């Protein structure tokens, strides 16, 4: 079954996701004034989002069918690498996505 057509699953997912939006953005607006973040916790919070994004991207691009996919034939990887270099140089998201998709399409059709 395609989960994108399972409205019960999607509605429950979106409800929970909306809660994560509100409780993180509003956390300290709602907490009592005496409550402060311990320094070590604040440090961990600074690294968690980058690590979570990395884990998603790594599993998306460097795995296939629940197996590591570390091969020269991994077109998505080369596209991501090319796009990332462009973003580091230009800080332009549109340029990054354009270059990444062009590299991916060229490799897919001709490599």
């Amino acid at each position, binding site marked *: 079954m*395609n*989960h*994108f*057509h399972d*409205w019960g699953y*999607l*509605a429950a*997912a*979106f409800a*929970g*996701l*909306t809660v*994560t*939006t*509100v*409780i*993180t*953005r*509003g*956390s*300290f*607006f709602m*907490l009592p004034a005496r409550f402060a*973040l311990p320094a*070590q916790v*604040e*440090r*961990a*919070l*600074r*690294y968690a*989002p*980058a*690590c*979570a*994004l990395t*884990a*998603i*991207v*790594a*599993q998306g691009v*460097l*795995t296939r069918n*629940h*197996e*590591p996919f570390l091969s020269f034939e991994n077109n*998505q990887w080369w*596209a*991501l690498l090319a*796009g*990332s270099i462009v*973003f580091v140089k230009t*800080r332009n*998201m*549109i340029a*990054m*996505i354009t270059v*990444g*998709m062009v590299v991916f*399409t060229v490799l897919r059709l001709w490599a």
Partner: protein
Amino acid sequence: MMPLAPAITVWGVVTGVAMVNAGLTIPAALLMTFTVFAGSAQLAVMPLLATGAPLPIVWVTALLVNLRFVIFAAASRWSFMHLPWPQRLLASYLNGDLGFALFSRRFAAADAGLGNDNGNPEQWGYFYGLAVVNWIVWQAGSVLGFLIGGLMPSDWGFELAAYLALTAVLIPMVQRMPAIAGIVSTAAVAVLGVGLPMRLGLLLAVLVGVTVALLGEAWRERRLART
């Protein structure tokens, strides 16, 4: 705010295209964008929703991506804590990356808890005006993205666009050695642990990555203190 409208629109369009290309139908995409309202988290959970991952894993993944907002909220809390709770709840929903960046630039002294004008009407007006325009421009961009994404053939592999967009959000967060060590170890654990049941490899990867980054920071501080 207005000079930033094109950037918000672009990010909305990119998110919208990537959501639809990941396989979400347009009605579901509309429901998601008008409720969840958190672009990076929306894109991050897309591959999980596509495979019907357990909901707790979906929610925890979004929570991890959204944890940066906790730091934002802690930094600007003095401007909001005096408000009645419906207004605080609304501010909680609308307080995205951009609103926070502009608000804290303008009211830096109050954010530090030093000003006498915490929670005054000017701050609320500035925040609210900014946040509402941000919401409208972002949603318009997203809806445009759904329409564009719906026109693209699915065999072009445009779901890669979502990973490219997430990487563009990620790169500015990773400037120093501890963070680099953290994301490299995260990637290694995520790839090796991809076969773990219920996508638990994701959470394990984040746990390892954050630990490595914290150890790296402690090690770096010790070394700096010695020299």
